[in-house]
């Protein structure tokens, strides 16, 4: 019963918070984008290598760029109020449809990378905490720190050279073998083999973060009284670690993971470009370069939603992990 009340309270709080925040994001980003020099018509002309005054005028009219900035903003907000994300004249599709073509790819990549990072990070962190001060800890600390310091895309590049080019074990680009019409296990394996390298490239940084956090939190927890009580009760040390220490250590780890969710979208930009992965990060970058603001605002809006949702989910997760945490 208490859980449902918690969920309700969290959702209500989130909704009240979210509305003005999202509005603020839209207005801020819209105004920011007006400062970027050049517009969508300039981009199309430069891609074509040719233009006439008439073709530029026609494109500007189509994109609504011949209207005042205020009008454009009001139009956008008006559409949004009706639940319509708008239309992208560049791709000639609704922004929603455009995003939907890339969203699954991004979610897949992000979820895989984050899960991988959390899993490996927590395991490595626990090992480091269990052997704190001794050589496994020291060695792993250095390894973890090295991963923390390497640019993710560089890790990706080196991984491609090793696994794809030299060993030929994994594909180097794309999210699947196109036009092969695979089914069943072949399909799953095909997708997985394309997913591993980009997910690893994206995750490498975060593995290190979670490992360090887990270690620090577990060591912190071990010093506290209730751990000594548990040991005195005669519980097996491993069980103590797992249940009590880990559970408490998860709180800072999940908080940070939640914060990373928002950045994961942006950080994925470089990885997606390198691997040709069809994701929202690349879409957003292309939209900035092409000055297609409807798509860009749609992506930013979506990412804000994701972050807000993630924060709400983490609040709930915390409540489950540590009942002492009341509604903030």
């Amino acid at each position: 019963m208490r859980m449902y009340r918690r969920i309700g309270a969290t959702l209500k709080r989130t909704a009240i918070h979210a509305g003005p925040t999202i509005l603020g994001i839209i207005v801020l980003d819209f105004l920011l984008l007006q400062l970027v020099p050049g517009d969508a018509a300039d981009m199309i002309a430069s891609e074509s290598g040719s233009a006439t005054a008439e073709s530029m005028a026609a494109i500007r009219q189509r994109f609504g760029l011949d209207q005042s900035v205020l009008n454009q903003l009001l139009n956008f907000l008006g559409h949004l109020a009706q639940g319509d994300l708008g239309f992208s004249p560049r791709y000639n599709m609704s922004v929603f449809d455009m995003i939907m073509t890339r969203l699954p790819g991004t979610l897949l990549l992000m979820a895989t990378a984050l899960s991988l990072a959390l899993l490996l990070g927590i395991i490595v962190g626990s090992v480091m905490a269990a052997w704190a001060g001794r050589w496994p800890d020291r060695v792993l600390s250095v390894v973890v720190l090295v991963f923390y310091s390497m640019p993710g895309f560089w890790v990706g590049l080196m991984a491609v050279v090793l696994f794809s080019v030299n060993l030929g074990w994994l594909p180097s680009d794309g999210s699947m073998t196109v036009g092969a019409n695979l089914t069943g296990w072949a399909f799953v394996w095909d997708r997985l083999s394309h997913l591993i390298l980009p997910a690893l490239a994206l995750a490498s940084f975060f593995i290190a973060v979670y490992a360090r956090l887990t270690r620090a939190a577990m060591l912190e927890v071990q010093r506290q009284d209730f751990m000594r009580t548990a040991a005195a009760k005669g519980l097996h040390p491993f069980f103590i670690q797992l249940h009590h220490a880990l559970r408490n250590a998860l709180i800072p780890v999940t908080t940070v993971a939640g914060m990373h969710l928002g950045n994961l979208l942006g950080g994925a930009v470089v990885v997606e470009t390198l691997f040709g992965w069809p994701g929202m990060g690349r879409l957003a970058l292309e939209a900035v370069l092409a000055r297609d603001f409807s798509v860009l605002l749609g992506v930013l809006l979506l990412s804000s939603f994701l972050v807000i949702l993630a924060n709400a989910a983490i609040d709930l997760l915390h409540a489950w992990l540590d009942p002492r945490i009341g509604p903030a």
Partner: protein
Amino acid sequence: MMTTNRATRRATLIGLSTLPWTLRGALAAPKAGGTLTFMQNNEPQTLVALTTVATPALTVSAKVTEGLLEYDYDIKPRAQLATEWTISPDGKTYTFKLRPNVKFHDGKPFTSADVAYSIQLLKTIHPRGRNTFANVSEVKTPDPLMVILELSKPAPYLIKALTAAEAPMMPRHIYEGTDPLANPNGNAPIGTGPYKFKEWARGSHIIYERNPDYWDKSLPYVDRIVCKFLPDPGARSIAFENGSADIGYRTPVALSDLERLKKLPNLRFETKGTSYSYNVSSLQFNLDSPIFKNLKVRQAIAHTIDRAAIIKTVCYGYGTVTYSPIAPGLKEFHDPSPSPYNLDLKKAAQLLDEAGYPVGANKIRFRVPLDYNPIGDESKRLAEFMRATLGRVGIGVDIRAADASAFVKRIYTDRDFDFLLNGHSNLFDPTVGVQRIYWSKNFKKGVPFSNASDYNNPKVDALLEGAAVEIDPAKRIAMFMEFQKIVGQELPDVSLYSPLYLTIKNVRVHDDSLTADGVEGNMSRVYLDPQ
């Protein structure tokens, strides 16, 4: 009808229906079947080259949407949707006979009404259409298989402009009455072409399937064309190596990687099929800039440029020197004589002193920003090369980077630049591709790739305008020759080189580049070796 005779100055061209294209030995008979994987650098935003002529769109457009003609490597016309064509002696009436029994992919017939409608459409929304078809005053369709173009003035370049990617023949029944810019046909096109559109997975790939009802019953051979997009050049190299890509054009890999790739046994490198659209890289001056309005400064810079070194370091050898804005590939019009300003650093230094820019304390005469067109990988390297070169005569160059839209706005709308490295395509005729850069009436703020320098020479204007309507080939050539001499002297810009583009393909791919525009054509004859 008079027969073609170069000696007589009247030319009436008679097209003939499909001739046997290649001299294929009995050994290499094309096998049907297979999937061709086409590698592109970027994803197109539309699949029909109607509102845009961006390379990614040009690559795919003709597979579905065909044109009236196609062209051999010397840009001589051959039949596609038109089987015969004549031009009247005064050059003002073009008559096309259309191929019978051609259907669009939705079963509707292709008729002259579609041609008439398409030309109107091209005049209004195509990036070049307005200029290319400017002289077309009326399109008559006396019968469903005949189209007559009436021109107000001759247009000697027009007959070369009718390839599928440059003047696509759109289905009137789909576009009429709609906003062509918004028509969903751009995302799922219907045409007369050898391949039908199947699916477009955004961010990932496009799939085209063989059209079983194509007007040439024996074609196409392959079952499917899959287009993949990879923005990273290194990844593209890898794709060619491991066979996940069969073909790509405009040198789809980094030039520095070509040496290595050429040693691989499973790849072939094709230079043919790049003659429809020669590119010329140049250093353009803003003649309103206080530094470069001075001819001596421009001459000095011309004296410092070592084009051979540029070809070697920037292009890795894949380029041809040109002193003229008309590319060497357009052999009939190109003036091969070298620049009056030879490579002479001493002369350059002397001219700069005379121009009033003596060497200052830190060996620099003056600092100036250099912009460059960000499209293409070579331009950045060229900018760095220029910086090093001009540094040797004491000109301190600060390279200014910008993305494509910001670049276009700065150069063409704001005109906030001193000089820049740019590239223009000559396209199929100098009137279409070169005139726009030097014609004073094309100095239009806000129009990209127009007369960026603000060059205004009445003599040049007269020559260009004359060549635009001159139907006597020899006279036309003479006009262009004189034009090249004048701009070579006056230096509104310095032409540097014409890049040599390669099409890279897997050994199993054949007959992909049989036309002037190569893989930008409909690729109806491409076939694969069985796996």
